[in-house]
């Protein structure tokens, strides 16, 4: 009897079986119940796998989305535009004052420092006054 039901187990798995052995197996009183149980075991195992799959998804660390060429191209284009805008802004400062000055609302002294049309004004002035360190030599 046990060997007969083994044919049914193989049949459920889609494996080749001997037709004569299959006839004998189907004649076993427990055959129908065995077939149903084999299918039910499969359903249990598959459900267990699905529930385990959900656990895998929960545990899986964040993976970056697959890179697509258009995403890379778009990012490169944005960077190029930003760089060009920054370069152009730095070039076209004009007599009305530096772009930095207009954007930040800086005062004229800082604007003069930022402008490349004239030499930068000194940012530090050293004053030497007559004192103990200096003596007028006449």
């Amino acid at each position, binding site marked *: 009897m046990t060997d007969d039901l083994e044919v049914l*187990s193989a049949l459920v798995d889609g494996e080749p079986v001997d037709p004569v052995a299959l006839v004998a197996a189907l004649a076993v009183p427990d055959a129908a119940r065995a077939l149903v149980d*084999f299918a*039910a075991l499969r359903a*249990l*195992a*598959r459900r267990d796998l699905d*529930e385990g*799959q959900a656990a895998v998804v929960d*545990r899986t660390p964040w*993976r970056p989305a697959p890179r697509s060429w258009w995403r890379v191209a778009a990012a490169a284009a944005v960077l190029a535009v930003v760089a060009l805008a920054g370069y152009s802004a730095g070039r076209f400062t004009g007599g009305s004052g530096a772009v930095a000055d207009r954007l930040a609302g800086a005062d004229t002294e800082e604007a003069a420092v930022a402008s490349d049309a004239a030499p930068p004004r000194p940012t530090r002035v050293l004053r030497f006054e007559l004192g103990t360190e200096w003596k007028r030599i006449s």
Partner: protein
Amino acid sequence: MTSGTAGDLFDGHRAVVYGYLRRMTGDAALADDLTGEVFVRVVRGLSGYRPQDRERAWVLTIARNVLLDQRKRLRPVLVGLDEADLYAGTGDPQQETRVRLGEALAALDEPEREAFLLREVGGLGYVEIGAATGTTPDAVRSRIFRARQSLRVLLSGELESARRMEWRQDS
């Protein structure tokens, strides 16, 4: 190989690999670690992949080897304790079914448990399971049958519920 990248391989087979390892070890955390190790080996072994092999069978063979190597390093972990501790007595039928399935699988002889899992979780055929485990398709057939017969006894209550669920789906 049907998968285009290592990421495709991971996405296509990780759940099955994890499911197989989880039920072979009885330890979800260990299965997690081993699953990662499996795919490291998969990526490293891509050059050795033979196109005539089915991708799933190849990956599960690697998973089996990872498991065997792990057992050489450590003594076997007790089976089913984590889920039993978590879910026993919770009153959640699905979780308790998972616990009993884990316990029933743990009660099987390892060759039978492995053959059953490679078939039902991995979807491998008898020839593929035989190649992965170093045995013949006839031996695989016998192991799977014995596993099913044992599980029929150990899970009689759950099988009754499963049969009723299937009937509800059909109606």
